């Protein structure tokens, strides 16, 4: 064997000289991976690794988590508060005191002039739960606007709505451990390996130990679809039809779990009457899945000892999003697949703390799944916060999507955007842009100054990001994870909690006639306050505290003070909801079986716009790319927007690999690069939504009637070839600095 050098030099391997690892939870998706960031002697964050003994990720991280330490030094961070009178003027640097006063006065001015609800607050799924809770207290208890919502309306509203309709409360009933027990898994519009890589790994680990069938419902041949035992390439927006047809077969062939249905559900007759209309032959004409496959999937699912469904945006982001979730729940309920190991309906959540905002932000109601519509809930919270009960509205206000329509209509004049970027993330960007230009007072609070929505702000408040702040987040399996403040925010940027508390002081002052609402400074204390509020409720967290959360690498709710008193250690995983009979959250403890008539209101391809536009996520990017677009080792895998286009269509249109093309919808256009692939059918293109001034210039985003979530995934476009490729390349480049 040839070894080369007889005299060997020392081997040099990069050594980042980490002297301390600090604990946090990953701030990207909702998986909730425990992460440790390594710091060198100079106190610089130089490395990230998965925490080996964390039940969720067991030492693993995806490529975004692996480079998460680079976030702290990424470009575009806001370093000082800024203000200006008009959005077309240049920014002026100001002190925090001036900025906070200006925001307080701005809100007051708008509210005094146009009424309390004319000022809207739009929050996020990106902050920490204590921050959500504090913001909720500030908004509901002191500012007093009912137009307060989060960007979770864009991703999880349909899941929330569907859970509420079926089970009487929000809250995903399953856990990751269910993969270890299931005998059949259906993934509805979920590209797990790309969207939630670590959950995918947990699934893969389970499947390698014990082979069970995987069924994937997705119009695109994703990696998960390709590796599925059965792939159902469904016609976009027709999931409800497929669900009804599956139930039709189950009832026809008497495969349902009659005992479970009888004991735990209401509404069977109405459901059976509706699904009777969806025989597989009729359904196959609508949803594009042949009758044979519908029957075999129904038998496989209903015949499995334990069967589970997971889903993501393929279901939620549709005009039938909430119905799709109910349909999945219906399937689970009629086969007795809720609350048992391997049998569940598990919404795979989007943002890192979408669950936290659902539980504690008071956006859609009051803390811990309390409802504004419920008199007792209003009374309890008003008493607890020490505010006037009548100050709270009796009905939830507008969703984020409707708030923008209200800005357009002139009903809402002021807006506070917190850690969200609607100019990129809402459908029909041009409409959003026009609306934002109309705002009389707009505050943007974000860790990034270069967030596109900041173009139309009058005040910019620089916030800390991720582990520059302390607090908790809840993951997909209802596990509460701790993030430590492991590094200071850059410049004068401050943790969101600090900003809310400073703002609260201004609204809480004696002049406002209240001055008695308590706002603790420390996240750990706020968490204990939340614990008190959670006692006896579904999401009971009264047994937890920050210290315990870090020690256990997260704890699934519920974990109660009674369990602590009884000496019961927190479960490491495996915690499910509705495991006992008739424990659903409706008054009688029974879940509802809800019939789902199908109304086809999608913008379907026609002669003028003959191509489906399907949008979705790439593993290397996070949402609007303000984070990952600046980290080379993430961004390089897809640095510019592109479409997947069927090679046969590309050939017909004369489009070659790597050509720029112009996509045109009834709203506007977008310039993207084409990559021909048979991942998509001939009448569809796939376009990642991450890029600013791109996908959402095209999307229509009809709203789901229940959840008000936009249907991002079903729009129609046409494709125009571009003769001047060079100009197109420069235009595409000009539209993004990252």
């Amino acid at each position, binding site marked *: 064997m040839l070894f080369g050098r007889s005299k060997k030099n020392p*081997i040099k391997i*990069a050594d980042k000289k980490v002297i301390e690892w600090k604990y946090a939870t990953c701030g990207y998706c909702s998986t909730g991976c425990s992460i440790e960031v390594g710091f060198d002697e100079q106190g610089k964050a130089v490395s990230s690794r998965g925490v*080996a003994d964390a039940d969720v990720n067991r030492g693993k991280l995806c490529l975004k988590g692996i480079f998460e330490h680079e976030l702290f030094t990424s470009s575009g961070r806001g370093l000082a508060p800024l203000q200006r009178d008009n959005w077309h003027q240049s920014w002026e640097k100001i002190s925090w005191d001036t900025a906070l006063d200006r925001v307080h006065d701005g809100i007051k001015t708008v509210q005094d002039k146009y009424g309390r609800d004319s000022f809207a607050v739009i929050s996020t799924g990106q902050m920490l739960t204590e921050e959500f809770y504090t913001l909720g207290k500030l908004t509901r208890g002191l500012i007093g606007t009912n137009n307060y919502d989060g960007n979770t309306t864009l991703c999880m509203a349909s899941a929330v709505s569907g859970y509420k309709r079926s089970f009487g409360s929000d809250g995903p009933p399953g856990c990751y451990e269910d993969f270890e027990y299931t005998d059949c898994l259906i993934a509805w519009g979920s590209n797990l390996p790309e969207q939630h890589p670590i959950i995918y790994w947990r699934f893969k680990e389970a499947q390698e130990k014990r082979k069970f069938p995987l069924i994937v419902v997705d119009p695109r041949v994703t990696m998960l679809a390709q590796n599925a035992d059965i792939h159902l390439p469904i016609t976009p927006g027709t999931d409800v039809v497929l669900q009804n047809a599956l139930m039709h077969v189950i009832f026809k062939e008497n495969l349902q779990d009659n005992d479970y249905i009888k004991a735990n559900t209401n509404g069977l007759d109405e459901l059976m009457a509706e699904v009777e209309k969806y025989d597989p032959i009729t359904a196959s004409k609508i949803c594009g899945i042949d009758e044979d496959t519908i029957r075999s999937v129904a038998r496989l699912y209903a015949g499995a000892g334990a069967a589970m469904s997971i889903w993501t945006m393929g279901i939620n982001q549709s005009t039938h999003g909430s119905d799709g979730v109910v349909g999945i729940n219906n399937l689970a309920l009629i086969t007795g697949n809720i609350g048992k190991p391997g049998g569940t309906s598990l919404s795979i959540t989007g943002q890192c703390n979408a669950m936290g905002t659902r539980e504690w932000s008071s956006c859609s109601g009051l803390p811990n799944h309390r409802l504004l519509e419920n008199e007792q809930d209003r009374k309890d919270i008003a008493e607890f916060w020490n505010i006037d009960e009548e100050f709270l509205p009796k009905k939830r206000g507008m969703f984020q999507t409707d708030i923008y329509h209200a800005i357009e209509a002139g009903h809402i004049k002021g807006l506070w955007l917190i850690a969200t970027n609607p100019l990129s993330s809402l459908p029909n960007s041009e409409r959003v842009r026009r609306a934002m230009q109309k705002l009389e007072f707009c505050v943007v609070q974000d860790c990034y100054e270069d967030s596109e929505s900041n173009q139309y702000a009058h005040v910019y408040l620089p916030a800390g990001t991720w582990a520059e702040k302390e607090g908790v987040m809840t993951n997909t399996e209802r596990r509460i994870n701790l993030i430590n403040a492991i590094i200071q925010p850059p410049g004068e940027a401050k943790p969101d909690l600090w900003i809310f508390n400073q703002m609260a002081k201004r609204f809480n002052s004696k002049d406002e006639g209240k001055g008695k609402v308590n706002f603790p400074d420390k996240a750990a204390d706020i968490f204990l306050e939340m614990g008190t509020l959670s006692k006896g409720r579904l999401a009971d967290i009264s047994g937890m505290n920050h210290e315990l959360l870090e020690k256990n690498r997260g704890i699934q709710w519920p974990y109660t003070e009674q369990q602590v008193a009884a000496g019961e250690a927190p479960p490491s995983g495996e915690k499910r909801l509705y495991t006992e009979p008739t424990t659903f959250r409706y008054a009688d403890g029974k879940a509802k079986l809800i019939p789902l008539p199908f109304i086809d209101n999608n913008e379907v391809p026609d002669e003028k716009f003959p191509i489906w536009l399907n949008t979705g996520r790439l593993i290397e990017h996070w949402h609007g790319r303000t984070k990952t677009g*600046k980290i*080379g080792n993430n961004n390089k895998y897809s640095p510019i927007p*592109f479409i997947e286009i069927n090679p046969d269509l590309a050939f017909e249109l004369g489009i070659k690999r790597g050509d720029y093309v112009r996509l045109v919808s009834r709203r506007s256009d977008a310039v993207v690069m084409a990559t021909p692939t*048979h991942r998509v059918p001939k009448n569809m293109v796939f376009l990642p939504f991450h890029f600013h001034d791109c996908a959402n210039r095209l999307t229509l985003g009809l709203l789901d009637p229940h959840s008000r979530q936009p249907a991002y995934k079903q729009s129609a476009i046409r494709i125009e070839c571009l003769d001047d490729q060079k100009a197109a390349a420069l235009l595409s480049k000009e539209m993004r600095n990252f």
Partner: protein
Amino acid sequence: MFARRDNEPDYAILRNREALAENDTTNCYGTSIETVQSDNPLRDQSLNINEEGEVGDNPDRYKQHGFYFNADNCIACHACEAACSEKNDNPAHIAFRSVGFVEGGTYPAYQRLNISMACNHCDDPVCLKGCPTRAYTKFAEYGAVLQDPDICFGCGYCTWVCPYNAPQLDPEKGQVTKCNMCVDRLEVGLKPACTSACLGNALDFGVIEDIPENRSQAKVDIPGFPRTDITHPNIRFQQTRTTQREMTRVDQTAIKYHRSDEPLDSCNSKTYEESSFVPELDPKQGFKREWNLKKLLTSHENAHIAFTISAQLVMGAFIWLFLGSFFGDTLSLNYLSSSSAYLPGLVLLLGLITTGLYKLNMHLGKPQRFYRGFYNLRHSPVSREIAGVSLFFAGLVLFTLSAFFENSFFSAIQFIAGLIALVGLIFGGYFMYKLYRIEARPFWNHINTATSFIATGLVLGSLFVAVLNSVMGVMPSILNNLLLIAVSTGLVLEIAGLWAHRQSLKSAKSEGAASFYEQTTTYGYAYILRNALLILSLIMSISLLLTEHQSLSAYLVLSGLCLVSAIIGRALFYVVVIPTTMPGGFFWRNKGFVEHARETGLADMPQMGVVYEKHHAFKLDELIETIKTTSMNEKIDQFKRIFSG
């Protein structure tokens, strides 16, 4: 030592090989898995990682290790690449490991196959053999092939010869780096960072041929993977799902892989046709013919064009002048050395080759380390080329100097110098050709490389002499005829070589077919122009010979034609070569996108993962510092090791 945690998860811990059968001691190529026997002095030494002297206690330390890749499971999540770049602190444009993919089928029966690959730590590392500076070592420990960027002078030859694109030439730093097998982790019983990070349970690592639990295959055959006889790579694959008949690359490379229906012994494949997945042309961009002259003539390989053409010209002309000096009478060439063109000619030649050598040296990532080019005379054709050309250069200098003096002593000196130069010419010339006979670069790996190099010497060398002698007005018809015969012969040789090249490429089952496709489409008009110029030159040369026409203007026109055709031809030679690398992605590891990003300025953004090619200054201070800090003994030892290894 790598800081191992107390609670490392099982998947990150290396399997122990002891459980395997004892007779299982050779790998699939028949080589011993044990790198050195137990009594070998290479045993029980420290790897000196970052100068720490500890010796790892891994019981399998002296067994060849390798990656195991289960293509059935890879989801292209890039976690392996990210973990690798995080651990090795690599900027976005450098990656020791990359995931590429091939795809096939028709919706929805579509299939994408992802392939994650780093260095294969080959049994027969061509990088180690090729590197002129001896920056590579194959360690007895784990059989790891490691490269030391502090030795490297950034010529990039290892990146040419490696069939897997493992060594990475950094245009910013001007040096090569590569996968180090995470030997620091191996020393403490942990699998490499990439393997431990895998989210699809696709990547594994261990003693070679040790099939992980739950896996059934250990083949060396997967669509896009080059044939194994070049280097005997230490990687094993599982890929049990039937692929589509045709799997296409998604990057710009015009290649697809055609499934062969007969199962083959992939360990012993010698040709592409023997592979289970035969590379074929995939004309992605159609057959539109283009000029792209700017792209052709402004590539980073221009230094090679300048060097090879100038060196070959000078060598060709030198032969005439040497023969004229000493065999003038017998060969009726005495006009050459006795004419007024002789001395200016020699000086001009010296100037030309100096320029070529300068261009070549300044093309290095670290030009001040030029002297390391000789270090690997034992194995590297590059070292031998450099040695040969240097010898030729030295001989030519002496030859030229002594030509200024007219006495028998200097005449003798000049004769010896001429012989030295001739030896250098033959040796250097041969290895100048040999170094391009790279298995991983099918476009070059053809006799055409030799015919083209010889032809350039014959044609341009002869025309140089002809023009010079014409200018000086000393061109007897016998010399005229001889020169024109040489030019015509050279042109015929060039044309014949190109014809044979074309014939072999057109039907090639290799990346050569894609190179030919590029040559005839992207650079189609330049290709036609070159061919036309060659034929025109031949017609002119033969016409001049037959009509015994003799004029400076005719020579100038002919030289112009030949020089332009030589430059275009050589530019094509460097620009359209396509290595047998693993398939890339649509953006990352796609040469097409890299070029696009550089052309449009997208590469200005560091997070694009694309940087510009650049030239590096000659750091004289570093050279002086090295000379100062290296003791005479070390210098002598270093010199000895050129021969001892």
